[in-house]
């Protein structure tokens, strides 16, 4: 086996995938989202973090398998926990938007 394969390699994530969310940093929007859904905590959003794409802050949208770059006009705090909450809020807003790519995909391919 070559030396290359013996060295641990960077997976390429742009964030610590195992960083535990700080519930005290939750935003009013996310609080309302959780309430609307009938959950008691961040649920699936625990795994959402602010990463980077081409040197710009970005969040990964699993529904379209793509990085979504954060608009430049959004000012981001220094703390990763605060940034993660903004990433979660942005992702929920994007996924629930009528402009999300899945809306068009559904129109084209849905059998229902």
């Amino acid at each position, binding site marked *: 086996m070559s030396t290359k394969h013996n060295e641990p390699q960077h997976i390429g994530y742009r964030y610590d995938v195992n960083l535990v969310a700080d519930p005290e940093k939750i935003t009013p929007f996310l609080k309302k989202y959780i309430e609307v859904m009938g959950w008691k905590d961040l649920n*699936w959003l625990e795994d959402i973090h602010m990463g980077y794409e081409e040197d710009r802050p970005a969040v990964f949208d699993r529904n379209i398998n*793509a990085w979504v770059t954060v608009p430049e006009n959004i000012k981001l705090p220094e703390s990763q926990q605060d940034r993660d909450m903004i990433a979660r809020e942005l992702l929920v807003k994007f996924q629930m938007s009528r402009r999300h790519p899945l809306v068009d995909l559904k129109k084209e391919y849905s059998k229902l």
Partner: protein
Amino acid sequence: MENKLSEKMRGEELVGRSQQMFFTPEEEENFLYPDSLEVDFDKTAEFDAAEMNASEINKKIRALMADGVGTITVNNPGAQHSIAAGILNRLKLNINGSLGYFGCGLIDGPVINISGRVGWSCGENMMSGVIEIAKNAGSTFGAAIRGGDLVCHGDVGGRTGICMKGGTIIVGGRTGAFTGFMMQRGRMIIMGDAGNNLGDTMYDGMLFVGGKISSLGVDATEAEMNDMDVRWLTSKLKLYNMDTSKIKNMTKIVSGKQLWNYDNLEPSEKKLVL
């Protein structure tokens, strides 16, 4: 009407492309997917499924949701397969009885309580929401789960959380062999004992075991518990009325990362620029 975006998607190669989307976070205040059904948790319905087949049960659930019912109770599902699969909506669903294979798979949003047992692959490919099972579960519990909380208060079979890609699996009792096999993300809490080859070839994620571990799988290794882990474990276990006193004796298992052979191909993912 011409749908330019869809045409583009059909023809393009999804390799390292950036796509400009026109979306302003400030203008969107929706909490639900477009086209999701408007349901009210205070509007309730209950039906007996003893004389119904799986398709009829699922159609009945969807018809009630279309009528705005947000809390549904299904009695006597008869351990039939694929019950409550593919619900992509907010909903409170109570199942009085047991489910067969692939119960509640592919869900995105609902909170489901099951009073009995479940068969193989309960909650497989779950995206978000909560599934809470009062008794035992079969093998491949939470296979390829991507998000949400999947909770079994009893024992579960082998290959629990196989290919897990996110979310949380909580097992109140014991779990079988190859639990966390090829796990990629997410967290799993096992209150009791774990079978052979725990976390075999796991790439990432975390396993917390309260009981005895028969053996660790390839590249699974013990790690030190930190304050954040304890805080997270405490809050999760409290949510589901489980014994938090066991946390101090739990063993944390993570990937040894010796099998990581990634190259720099990741930028080939599709990109969206807002």
